[in-house]
């Protein structure tokens, strides 16, 4: 059942649930943060509208910098501006930033430890028809290995806005992962958000049999899987990881101790992403069997977002199967 304490969207299961792209929340959050923090500047590599930085650029044209199609320059200019007291937010597609400019992010932002927020939009398989070249499935891995870097993976547009506002207050190097396609709005204005805190969105009546740990736009599918299995008597808790780094170790360990069997769900290569982060955490605390839902060491291809999520086995059906495997492993 839906966790009543988190004041989630009451229409979450409805056919007319509000659908919004996660990137919209970033655009709105940046605009709002910039209204009170004059040091915030926006820098974009020719994808201002796609990344929703246009909301900021329209309102604050003198604080907006257009670098053209040059992602290495995007983040190094940002590092220089940060060194002068500015707080740059830079946006592009995740495939190009951090895909193309990883070393510049490492050396000039993270090693320098200057406040720059890298927003990577169009992350995941749900980019859709643009195909494999544009579907960033490696960005979480690239960013979470960097010391000083905070990695945020909001599950909907509202959480993305809150995450953007929270990182604007924190003023540290950060990566925020955004999706292109519309996805169901899970949270509400009243849902609490804190960087570094995981939340159990779907609760169980009594101890859960399996815990599902998910991030991004697939969180809704994970909740849908839990809801379906609830009717069969399989109790599944679904945890949303809004921050992959720093990981909420306490919450994950508690879930592992309760369920003794987990499933991780992400629109990312299984190698190096959320599932890997959870496995690293648990191997050194409470070793727990994990079924990984994610991209299986392949590239994506063109198709509609919904088709691709199903085709590459990251949809509700695949999550249900993974949960069943997790139950089986527990029984063995």
């Amino acid at each position, binding site marked *: 059942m839906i966790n009543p304490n988190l004041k989630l969207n009451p229409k979450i299961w409805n056919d007319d649930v509000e659908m919004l792209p996660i990137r919209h929340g970033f655009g709105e959050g940046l605009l709002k943060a910039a209204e009170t923090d004059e040091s915030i500047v926006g820098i974009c590599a020719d994808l201002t509208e796609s990344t929703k930085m246009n909301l900021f650029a329209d309102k604050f044209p003198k604080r907006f910098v257009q670098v053209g199609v040059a992602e*290495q320059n995007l983040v*190094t*200019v940002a*590092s*220089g*501006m940060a*060194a*002068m007291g500015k707080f740059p937010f830079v946006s592009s597609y995740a495939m190009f930033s951090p895909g193309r400019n990883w070393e510049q992010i490492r*050396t000039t932002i993270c090693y*320098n430890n200057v406040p720059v927020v890298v927003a990577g939009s169009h992350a995941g398989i749900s980019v859709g028809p643009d195909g494999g070249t544009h579907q960033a499935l490696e960005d979480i891995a690239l960013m979470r290995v960097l010391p000083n870097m905070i990695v945020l993976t909001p599950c909907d547009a509202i959480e993305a806005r809150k995450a953007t506002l929270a990182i604007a207050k924190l003023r540290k190097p950060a990566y925020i992962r955004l999706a292109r396609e519309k996805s169901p709005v899970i949270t509400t204005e009243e849902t609490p958000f804190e960087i570094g805190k995981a939340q159990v969105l779907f609760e169980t009546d009594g101890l859960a049999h399996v815990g599902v740990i998910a991030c991004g736009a697939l969180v809704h599918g994970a909740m849908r899987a839990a809801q379906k299995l609830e009717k069969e008597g399989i109790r599944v808790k679904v945890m949303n990881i809004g921050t992959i780094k720093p990981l909420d170790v306490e919450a994950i360990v508690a879930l592992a101790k309760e369920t003794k069997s987990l499933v991780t769900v992400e629109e990312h290569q299984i190698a190096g992403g959320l599932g890997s982060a959870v496995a690293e955490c648990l191997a050194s605390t409470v070793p727990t069997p994990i079924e990984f839902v994610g991209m299986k060491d392949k590239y994506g291809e063109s198709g509609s977002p919904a088709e691709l999520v199903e085709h590459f086995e990251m949809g509700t059906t695949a999550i249900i199967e993974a949960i069943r495997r997790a139950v089986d492993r527990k029984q063995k």
Partner: protein
Amino acid sequence: MLTDEKVRELTLQANAIRQSTIEELLLAKSGHSAGPLGMTDIFTYFYFHALRHDPKRPDWAERDRFVLSNGHICPGLYATLAHAGYFPVEELKTLRKLGSRLQGHPHREWLSCVETSSGPLGSGLSQAAGMALADKMDYGATATRHIYCFISDGELQEGNSWEGIMFAGKYKLNNLITVIDYNNIQIEGLVSDIMPLEPLADKWKSFNWHVIEVDGHDFRAIDEAVEQAKSMSAQPTVIIAHTIPGKGVSYMERNYKWHGNPPNAEQAAQAIAELKEAALKI
């Protein structure tokens, strides 16, 4: 115009910095020799004449900014910073040692008198351009601060460099002055063999930069170039400084094999002897 006395003072200072550079590289047992020695005159000119800075207050808000993009020539920067008073000359002995602030390539968080960490090539100019743009955002035409950036010829083979060059031209960053260490060597040979840059001045001009070429060991020529660069109203300036790698040490001069190696004890002794002899003639 620099006075004769000022030129003599800078020449003596540069000689002392070269000696310190040799000494720190000898103790470090690794590091780059030719580049730092080739750029010592320009380092000296900036830290002992041109830069608005205060070694007692490295975080002084009104200071000019100096970005070393080609971080591998930091032994020369460290020796210059020490002689300028940022930290004791004695500390140079810790170069590349465990726990030292003087990392093999500059680390801004540990050594606050450098403006950025550098080493991976090609990204310093963009950072300097970001600094210059930030200053213009805050102060517009009344900005009086200058952002200086040293880059190497070899790192002009990096794409990031050209992204930054295009960007600075677009935003007419006249407060940005870049100096190219054009010594024509890189690790594996001559720049002109490995990936030629010519016509270099024309390339920069076509990206809307003001271009000045100088002898990188002529203090008066460097000074005139910097003064001219400061007078530009709508363009960034690049000063292409023709330098001699290994300058001041006979066996290192113009030999690319000294790009990435330190002298041994015997070689260091010879280098110091040559520099001391040269100092007597200044």
